[in-house]
Structures are given as C-alpha cells and as structure tokens.
C-alpha cells in the first residue's frame, strides 16, 4: 500500500504493507541507516526518531501511523552535523562503539527542543529509554548539558530551530 511521508523535510511515497514498522521503511526503503535496530520492542531506544518533534520509537510505529507526519532522523537533525547535540557529542567524545548514539542524540535533541535548560532529573526522565551497552552514560549526560550551553550561546545570535514541529 502507498503511504506519503515527510522525512527530513523531503516528501516520499513508499509502497509497503500496512503494519511495516517505520524503522524498516526508513532504513531499507529510504536508505537512511542512521536509525538503528536493537530490540524491535521499544526497549532499547536505538530506533528513536522525531515525529512532529517528539522522540518516538520507530520500531513499534506502524507506517500507517507515521504517514502525513513530519519525521526527522539523525541525518536530518542538521545540515552538516551542526546541531548543538552533534557538536557536543563530538566535543565530549561520547561514543565507544557508537551504535546506540543515533537514538541517544534523537532523544536528547527532542529534550532540548522542549526544555533548553534541562536538569539532571529532566535528563534522567528523557533518556531512561535509551540503552548504551558500552556504558557511555556519564558522557551522554555531560554532552546534553554541554549542548544546552552551546544552544544558549547560539540563541544570542539566532534562534535554534525545533526539528520540524
């Protein structure tokens, strides 16, 4: 069946069976491999994308429920890796294997979009669903605080665009 999607600002029409998870449409039909598969049951957070600006697990989002909405993947978070989260992730040297980090960054960027100055408790609540098997959690937390700082500095120059909300 044909579904119309808006992914990273671009319109697409995909022909997949009803019920196909958005994760696999993004990866195997649209060829965007940043979003990852870790569990298929919304337990690990690797598959996190934004749907209308909200962090959402794409492995349990059926394609028909994503149709017509604004979907943002890691590839669409910024033009050239310039989102404060991406800059902070590089500055703090967050990844070990790196596999979970797309999901981590998508959850973190959604948090920052709605809460520009998150506390540790805010970070706990937003990031609890994202597993890091390698254990980079201390750096993830540090990088979110750093990204908030970077975004605040940028704000004095220009507003930070919320991702397609």
């Amino acid at each position, binding site marked *: 069946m044909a579904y119309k999607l808006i992914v990273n600002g671009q319109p697409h029409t995909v022909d*997949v069976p009803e019920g196909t998870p958005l994760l696999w449409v993004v990866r195997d039909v649209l060829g965007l491999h940043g979003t990852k598969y870790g569990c298929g049951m919304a337990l*690990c957070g690797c598959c996190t994308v934004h749907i209308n600006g909200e962090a959402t697990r794409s492995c349990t989002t059926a394609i028909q429920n994503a149709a017509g909405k604004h979907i943002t993947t890691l590839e669409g978070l910024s033009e050239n890796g310039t989102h404060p989260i991406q800059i902070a992730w590089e500055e703090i*040297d967050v990844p070990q294997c790196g596999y979970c980090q797309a999901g981590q960054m998508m959850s973190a960027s959604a948090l920052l979009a709605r809460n520009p100055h998150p506390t540790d408790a805010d970070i706990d609540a937003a990031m609890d669903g994202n597993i890091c098997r390698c254990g*980079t959690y201390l750096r993830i937390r540090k990088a979110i605080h750093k990204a908030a700082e970077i975004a605040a500095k940028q704000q004095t120059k220009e507003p930070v665009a919320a991702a397609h909300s």
Partner: protein
Amino acid sequence: METTLVSRRSFLRASVIAGGGMMLAYYVEPLEKVLAAPQFGPPVTLLPASFITITPDGAITLIAKNPEIGQNIKVMLPMLIAEELDADWKAVKIEQADLIPAKYGAQIAGGSTATPSNWVPMRQLGAQCRAMLIAAAADNWGVPASECTTTPSRVHHEPSKRSASYGQLSTKAASMPVPDPKTLTMKDPKDYRIIGKNAANPDIKKIVTGKPVFGIDFTAPGMLYANYEKCPVFGGKVISANLDEVKAQPGIRHAFIVEPGPDPTALAGGVAIVADSWYQARHARDNVLKVVWDDGPTAAQGTDTYNATADDLAKKDPGQTLRKDGDVETAFSAPGAKVVEAAYSYPFLSHVPLEPQNCSASFKDGKLELWAPSQTPASGVAQTAKALGIDQKDVTLHLTRIGGGFGRRLTNDYMVEAASIAKQVGVPVKLLWTREQDMAHDFYRPAGYHYLKGAVDSSGKLVAWRNHFVSFGENNRFAQSAGLGGEEFPSRFIPNFSQLASMMPSGVPMGAMRAPGSNAIAFVMQSFIDELAHAAGKDPLQFRLDLLSNTPLPMAPPPPGTPVAFAPVAFDGPRMKAVLETVGERSGWGKTKLPKDTGMGVAFHFSHRGYFAEVAQVQVIKETNLRVHKVWVVGDIGSVGAINPTAAENISQGAVIEGMSHVMGYEITIEKGRATQSNFHQYPPLRLTQAPKEIDVYFLKSDNPPTGLGEPALPPMPPAITNAIFAVTGKRIRSLPIANLGYSWA
C-alpha cells in the same frame, strides 16, 4: 602439584590467527613474542608501506588494522605509528584495513591483546618510515643521516640549515631500503607528543551524522535480505518446515533448509528465509514459518538440574585437584582458627551487543566477498571457506565498524551462515538476526558454582582456603571459558590451599565474554576474601594489603611440553598492592564520614595483564533499594598508562557500568534446553538513570610494558558493590544477579 593447561583464557584460540587448532592458555611478556610463536602460523614481516602512505602534499594515511568494537583501537594503533614516524598528527587520516593477514599480521579484537602485541611493532613501523625519510633527505643533501633530525612531518639538517617536508621526500623515501628495526632508536617517552594525549575518534563525524558504518548498514546493488531460524534448543535439528507457505509470502524470494556443517558451532542447521526486505523475511519467520524440530538430547537440561547436580557433586570427592599447598584440614581445626564456609554461584550470561549478529556476503564465480562485524575475521574466513569448500584465497573480507563485541563476535557463526545462504541464492545477501535470535543463540558466559571453606588464625591472618569449584565440561576438560586455573589468586598467597574441581556435561554453547573467567571468578574470590576479613575483625582493605604482602609460593611448572610462549604469568603482589593503596587513598577509604545508609566496598583483580582495584560507594535505601553514588577505579596497565586518555577513561567507565549490569539484572536461565530470556525486558542493561554520577578512573604507571584495557576494569566491580552492601547491611551476597534476592536500583 597439578596444574591444568586449559584455562579461562583459552578463548583466544590460535585458530583465530592461522587456522590452526591450538588453544592459547597462557602468555608471557611480551605478547608479540607469543603471537610470533610457530603455533600461530608463519610470521609476517610488517612493512611500513603497508601501513603508511605519504603523498607529495604531505597528507598521511595510516592503516588501522584491527576490528573496531568501541575500544577505539582505530585511532590508538595509528597513534603509535605516528609518534615514532614523528608525523604532524593534524595531517593524519586513518583508514580501516580489510582482512589481509599476510600484509597486516594479526587482526583481532580480543583478550585485551592489541596493546601488548602491537606496542612494539606499530612504533617500529613508524620509526622505520622516519628513517627512510631521513635517508632520502640525507641523500638529497649529500649529508650523513646521523646529522639529520625531525620535527613533525619535516626532516632537518641543522648544520646546513636545510629542511624538507615529508611530502616533498615521500616519493624518494618509498624507494629507500627498509631498515632493520633493531638498528633504530625509539623515542624517549618524555618526548611523546601523541601517545598519552587525547585523540579524537576517527569515526566521530560519521557516527553523529548517521553515516552507514556498521555491519548492519551495508548495502549492495541487487542485495537481498535474510533471516536464519535455528532450533531454540541447543543442538537441535530441522526435520521439516513449511517452505512453500513461506515462499508464498510477499517479498519472499527463497526459503530453504541449511544442513548443519561438520562443525555445528560454525554452522548450525536451520531455515533461511531470503526476501526483498528484511522486515518481510522477519515477518514471515515470526508469523508464517513452522518448523518441526528434532530437539535433541539437550532438551532435558535446565538451570534447575544444573544447580542440583552442582550441589550433588560438591558433596562428593572432586574430579580433579588443580593445586594443593600445605594442609587445609589441619589448618581448619587448629586452635583459635575462625572458619567460614560459603557456597557461591553465578548464572549464564548473554553478551547482548546492541548491534545484533549480522553479516553480508556475495558469492560469484567461485569467489566470496564478505562484509563482517567480526572480532576474529581470519578465523571466520578459515571456517567459512571450509564450510563452502572453497580456497581461503578466494575470500575477501571487509571489516565493518562493530556495534559492540564483548566477546560475542569472537565466534563467526553469522559469517558462515551468511556465506552459505549467499552461495545458494547467487546474489549479495545481508543476514540479520533478530534480538531474540541473538539471545537464543549465543556462546554464553558459563554459570559456575564455588564451594568454599576458609580460615583465619587467631591473629587474623588468612591461613587456609579450600575451593571445590563445580563447572561444566567433560573428561576433565572444562567447557569453553568455564575453567579455573590452579594459580588463580589467592593461590600461592595462602600457605594451606586446596583448589579442586568437578564438572558436569551441558549442551549449552559456551564462550568468552569480556574478561572471560575473571568476570565471574573475581566476584567469588573478592567476596570470600571480604568474608574472611570480617571474620578476622579486620578492615577489608588492610586485610587485602596484608594478604598481598605474603611472599607467594612458587608457580607450578607448566605441563611437560608446554612451549615457552605459553608459560603462565605470575600474579605480582606488589603491583596489586600499589593500585589497592592508591584506590584506598583516592576514595578516602576509612577516612570519609558516610551516612549510616551508605558504605564502601573494595575489590581487586588481575586479568589480561592488568592490575585493577576498585571501590564502590553504595547507598542502601530500605534494605534492598540501591544507589551507587561513586566508583573509583585504579589500574596499572604499565609504563605509559593511558595511551589515549579520553578513550581509556570512557572504556573503564563502561566496564564499571557493565559490572553493575552483571550484579543486578543479567541472567540467562536454561529451561528445556533453551535460554529463557529473549529480549531486554528480561535481561536489563543498566540505564542512564541508574549509573553513578561519578566514576573516577586513574592509571598508576609502573615500570612494565604497556598492556590492554578492554577487559581488566570489569571484574572487580561486582564484588566491590556486593562488599559495599555488606558494609551497610551486614547481609552477605553469594549469588548473582541480586534482583533475584529482591534488590533493585533506586
């Protein structure tokens, strides 16, 4: 004294390097001598041109030869080359090597061996290349090479005030003879510009922008996607399957039975479903595929029977004696002796790297091309070529970035499967397991049982220790990673010591998991030492320092015929004392006023040549609700400490977090011959909210060659936590995971 050559380190089979079949049981300093031993196949002469390319514009490309699993070896090995090359690090680009052992030597991620085995060879390559650049300049200028020096990426002749860039010299340098590395002088460590400084992850930009760098991300034109279903009971076989019904599903191109290979750990039999997209294959497997399995004999086995058998075996005479010193029975009955008896146990564990097992393969005109996230690619190629009946030289393997190894990817079942499927379908195929298949088909960290009895004398000295270790194995050979060596600490440090073992057969496939053996043994040893410390009325840290101060008894001679390269490494008491004292200081042990509900636990362990001591500060709320507030890690990994400090800190913190997962929630139970737990809801890794806010990592430099860091920070963490729980509550934990005992994270 008897010792056994089969040890918990036996995961690093020689077959991973040269297609042989030996087991690497022990190793001596330096490790590159071990890997150069004839058992590992013909030695490879590494050439600078294989690893270093300098173009006339001065750009330097360095080859990173090993699989990258998150340990950041991809930058570390090039750092070693660049240092002795005296390269301008800003001009360096790094490229991942394909598998070409004849060119690159050993290409493995395992055993924390990369640092000790490459510390010399990689630096030698850099030094050789630098010498060739100097020779080129000296020849151009008609001056002796001995009068030339270098600054980053430049050769200088001070007397004549001439200099040239590496770029300018590159073409000529490439034609100079490669000098014997033994004639070259390496840098004085105090002159290091690159080693010991933070280096950026070469893939960081790709990772933060979602570029397709992992095995699971590979694509090729015309590629199909496969799922492979095996019997959930270990060792089971396919009798029949409803292949026609599966093939009738949308997008399904092929469905066929694959027979088990001669080595079922390389290729277990199963049903392959090949489709236009992975989700179609997965959907058919979940909803349509029906397989009639011959479950086989393992179907009768389970954790309950293993537990009962262990208790049974513990009551009988042990099957073998691993080591015996003095007379434990007399020491137990000596007047004034305080005796402690305890039974410890830990479960099977699954590795659960976050990227599920996968491999892509293309078989065309008798030649195989692979894109594999593997920790032992050479071994994989050997197994795969054998399974397909082709020559290894007809196999090309590209190493992808790997979403976590932890020892799971030391085995290459996914590679043999992908290749077998690709051979059948004739187009490129990406094989991807589901998470459930990943947890159902692991080479699990073995469960184990220790039946201990120990005594301290009237002065509080640890004088007797008896351990009847019950494990898995047959015919006095331990199963993979299920062993215990006679020299395992506290062996040799206690005058009356008896290390005994019994074993039971099991159909569960077992294998190495991060710090194999150690990741479980440290929990037992450091907990029981803690029990004896408390029995002696001594401070747990001081008790350990006293124990480490004993003059150790001699090592047992290795069995006759053991090659020199495989003689055991002796536990070095003073090195462990030093890290233990340091962690005591850094944590404020015994000096910090803590609230009544908070306590500290200490533990140490020697593994993979590293000496690590750790302290955990744990708050216990309402008896069973835990918060680990802070952890201190002190490690001795030799004279350089952290080669790349940011990566060293990251991986050590990660080891602590993994240890916390082992303590609280990781457990694989076996029921009817299969793993019970299927996904993360039943096998919970630690979450960000549960992680300590601070993990302090410190490297104590010692006058020893640099050694590895992937593993040795993990083993002390579980006992440090359970010892802290005892300090607060007086409750001694003797089995993992503690969620089974009612504990949870706050």
